[in-house]
């Protein structure tokens, strides 16, 4: 176990290093003089001097990387020359919204996927299984940006439900009920995509598990169906489910970006798109770095949880 964790940790550090190099190098993809593009409307001799000091633009590219990374480690992601605010502050304000949407959507997705997958697995190819199979397959082909537009059209515009449409976001601290209402559509939209993946993965894994001998053994001992499903079959199958959840995070983020953008919810996705449109490159770079490292860390944590659930994996 310890050896496994150490090995994964070395991998993790390697991956974060690659991410940092990639994020750093983004600035150099900008056409022409990067300083002029980054400063944009804030181009003045004072700002230019600040930027050169921050990025070390007149030094070699390797030195620039070390200047940049030592700032990042200290939590200094630079100051946006367009909005005159610290990139780190902007990110800290937006990040909780993303986490809230993702958390809500995952609760919904698991709450729907686990019981339905169990129901399907109990009688594979039965009527319920077929209906759920066809439904999940259809949902698989509807991207989140279409779901959210249609939901806004029907629920917010046609039915006229309050606090749920575009630009209705209220922070959790101000009024938590309205906050949850305003996040209902994005959470639901993202939950659909996750539900389909979790349902399909858990269903096929449960069907395989239920054919194992220890299940037959449990049945012959007269253990109730309910207990067999939850205690005997779910635990081995939950490894596949957790694996799918870990992989799903990246896609969830991108889906979240689109949904936030449409509903004008000021999370990281909305901030990122606004920053791209304003050519606020330091902010874009900061968000890309934070989000990438976040995804990798979440994957690492999921790997760790999987190992606790099924310790055989680390021994192989």
């Amino acid at each position, binding site marked *: 176990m310890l050896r496994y964790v150490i090995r994964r940790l070395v991998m993790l550090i390697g991956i974060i290093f690659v991410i940092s190099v990639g994020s750093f190098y983004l600035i150099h993809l900008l056409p022409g003089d990067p300083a002029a593009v980054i400063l944009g409307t804030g181009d003045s001799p004072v700002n230019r001097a600040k930027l050169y000091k921050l990025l070390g633009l007149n030094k070699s590219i390797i030195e620039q990387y070390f200047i940049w990374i030592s700032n990042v480690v200290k939590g200094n992601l630079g100051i946006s020359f367009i909005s005159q605010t610290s990139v780190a502050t902007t990110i800290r304000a937006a990040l909780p919204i993303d986490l809230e949407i993702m958390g809500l959507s995952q609760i919904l997705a698991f709450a729907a996927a686990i019981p339905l997958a169990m129901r399907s697995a109990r009688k594979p190819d039965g009527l319920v299984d077929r209906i759920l199979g066809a439904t999940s397959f259809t949902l698989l*082909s509807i991207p989140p*940006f279409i779901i959210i537009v249609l939901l806004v059209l029907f629920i917010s515009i046609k039915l006229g439900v309050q606090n749920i449409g575009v630009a209705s976001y209220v922070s959790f601290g101000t009024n938590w009920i309205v906050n949850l209402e305003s996040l209902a559509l994005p959470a639901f939209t993202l939950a659909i995509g996750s539900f389909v993946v979790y349902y399909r993965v858990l269903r096929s894994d449960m069907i395989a598990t239920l054919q194992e001998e220890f299940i037959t053994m449990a049945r012959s001992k007269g253990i109730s169906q309910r207990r067999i499903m939850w205690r005997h079959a779910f635990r081995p199958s939950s490894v596949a489910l957790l694996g799918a959840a870990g992989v799903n995070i990246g896609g969830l983020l991108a889906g979240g970006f689109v949904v936030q953008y449409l509903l004008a919810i000021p999370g990281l996705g909305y901030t990122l798109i606004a920053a791209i449109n304003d050519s606020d490159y330091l902010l874009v770079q900061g968000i890309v770095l934070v989000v990438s490292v976040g995804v990798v860390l979440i994957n690492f944590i999921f790997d760790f949880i999987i190992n606790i659930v099924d310790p055989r994996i680390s021994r192989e």
Partner: protein
Amino acid sequence: MSELFGANSPSQVILSDSSLVERPEKNEPLGVLFWICVGWLALNIIGAVFANVLPLQNPLFQDYNFVNSGPSLHHLFGTDDLGRDIFARVVYGSRVSIAVGAGAMVIGFGIGAPLGMLAAYRRGRFDTITTTIMYVFLAFPAIIAVIAVLSFWTPRSMTKIILVIGLASVPLVYRVIRTATLAIATKDYIIAAKVQGATDRRIMMKELLPNIAPIGISFLLIGIATVVTLEGALAFLGLSVNPPTPSWGNMINESRTVLAENPWLVLFPSLALCLFLLVLNFIGDRLRSHFDVTEVKL
């Protein structure tokens, strides 16, 4: 290395999503629905390729006498807020989706597939090195990377979008092809061919390639569907081809502002996109179960 990235690697689980119910006969028939889907796919491709030859209206022509009109004989799908014919725009819009989907997968398979085959066939140090590199990139959230590169690498063009998504898909293709090849490279007939003195080139082209083709093709179709979705999301965020060139994604995005007045405008491109994705997913899934390939079995 294999224990580090072995079959239990959580990221691999997603590819094993396929029914594990025992099937009575091995190659179940493809079914009528499968051929309907193939027909729809073919229709889409023909429409995209011959859009400028077909008797369609100009997708950029703005007729201010017919703004936000519903479907009629003159405008089959109605017109948008600038009086442009939605039917023509949907057909022309398929060009972007199909070109990006196919183009990106050509790059992804062009680089990923030969590397994956070679690594799994040769094994040894080459395999260890390429697999490690690929898994590092696989851990990187590709979607964020694509958004990041496209937002910095201006001005955006279709070629750049295809290139960026294509390169981002290489590690994924590599993993699928490598795993598929690994399972086959140890089979008796491969060893028999080696014993008979067949060249590596011959074994790879004549023995390995035909056997990994089914999983390759089914993954290719599902891959195209994924790329088309991604392009739609990018268009939505304003990171794909620039308007007025129609694409399904940017049509849906533009429809947001007139959602209440003209719901047709969001309906038709959404429908076209969803049907296209459904058809690709269905054909891919059907082929996979027809040839009975699941990664669990590999």
